[in-house]
């Protein structure tokens, strides 16, 4: 129910998003939107070796999609880029504390993960096409 969804922490990330903005010297930038509701997320990544050295997002949309994006950037900053591959739906939903969303709202929560995975694929596609292909199959169904 709404009381469980719109908790203090979600509203805080919604109103005070972390890592929000542009990243002029990004190594990869990617955009996607949720056609069903119009939520939009851009992810910008700076990669050092194979580590996510910096990450910023831009976006507009509901509290769930924006808070989720904000929390996701915190979650992966400083981690190896390939670790994005292993992030599951449930990791995200548990991280933001929303495990009982309906099918429509779940898409909001997962949009940023989808964009991040696309970004990872794109990063490798430009550099290492073979492994990119393997990574791609993985981001299906978000």
């Amino acid at each position, binding site marked *: *129910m*709404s*009381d469980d*969804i*719109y908790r203090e922490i979600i*509203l805080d990330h919604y*109103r005070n998003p972390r890592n929000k903005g542009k990243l002029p010297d990004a190594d990869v930038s990617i955009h996607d939107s949720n056609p*069903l*509701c*119009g*939520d*939009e997320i851009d992810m910008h990544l700076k990669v050092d070796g194979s580590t996510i050295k910096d990450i910023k997002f831009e976006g*507009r*949309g*509901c*509290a*769930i999609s924006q808070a989720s994006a904000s929390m996701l950037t915190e979650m992966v900053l400083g981690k190896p880029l390939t670790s994005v591959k292993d992030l599951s739906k449930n990791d995200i939903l548990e991280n933001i504390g929303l495990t009982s969303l309906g099918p429509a*709202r779940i898409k*909001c929560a997962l949009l940023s993960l989808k964009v991040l995975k696309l970004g990872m694929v794109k990063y490798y596609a430009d550099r290492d096409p073979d492994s990119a292909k393997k990574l791609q199959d993985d981001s299906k169904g978000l």
Partner: protein
Amino acid sequence: MMQKQGALDVGKIREDFPILKRKLDGGKTLVYLDNAATTQKPLSVINAIHDYYMNYNSNIHRAVHQLAEEATLAFEKTREKVAKFINARSVEEIVFTRNATEAINLVAYSWGRSNVGRDDKIVISEIEHHSNIVPWQILAGEKGAKLEYIGVDDDGYLKMKEYGTHLDSNKVKLVSVSHMSNVLGTIIPVEEIIRMSHERGIPVLVDAAQSVPHMQVDVQKMDCDFMAFSAHKMLGPTGVGILYVKKEILEKMPPFMGGGDMIKEVHKYETRYNDLPYRFEGGTPNIADVIGFSAAIEYLEDIGMDRVRDHEIELTKYAIDRITGVKGVTLYGPRNMTDRGGVVSFNIGDIHPHDLATIMNDHGVAIRSGHHCAQVLMERLDVAATSRASFYIYNTKEEIDTFIGALEEARRLFKI
């Protein structure tokens, strides 16, 4: 149509819509305020479909056995009812499609491809639904034609001066406008638009998806050349759209979908097409739902479209009065009740419409949130999305109270 007197007996009407008693997951009773997206169906419509499948399901037009005759008669009776409902001159002017979208696309493909060429212009407006934008973008892209938009002013009205200026070009081949905005509720002065257009010999398509369900529409009085609407937005089943085209125009239009039923004679390398309107109905139609649509029209006729309109004005006025009392609300669209239909779009504080809809849902209230397939208008309003409550014959002031209660709850949660 007979003029009915007095207010609707909403209590009695609600008995015909069993879904309105539905308890949702949280235990709350459904408050359905998403009628601009699709309306609920009365028992008479549900039963007509049921009756068809239980008793006389058959393919139509091409067989002589009794089921086929019964189904054909019932199917064609709907066409007569539709023609009468919008006061078309003849059943030949009524084409059944899948939905309003397909009706508009039919015009874009058939009429458009033979009448619009390079550098020609198609004039639409900023309030249009995507169904009345994208087909013209596709056509324009293919033909090298141009799309022009009539602007919307800050009160939600079309800029009619701008419209006059657009028409000054002799390159305009078609004007295509909504009769009523599905976001702002604005009722567009289509008769004036058509008069101005016809003075220059330009035909007009009216997207009546939001008007035919809610007010009396008379195609002869309006004098539009094309009109499109959907059965599912007026108590009818999903899967049925209606395209009205003036006979003298329809006669000259090339066919759209080729196939069964739309032909008279097929030879290997040439085909003689069927008479109107069948020429435009290729393949097995959506027989059951067209027949079900008859019952929807009967239901609306029994009430009387003027009373439908009056009821919606009353509800809309009440809703606007109450919602303007809620802190942080921004309301879109005209304030004058005679210029608007039963659609109330708004935003509240920094609550995103999807979050609001989720909170509403906890209270059983079904509203729509998002861009309402009108992103051009969203850009114009400079918002990503709005929330929208929309009303129909079975809605009550008590339901609007529940809606306002949920809105106050959202404010509390978001600390606005």
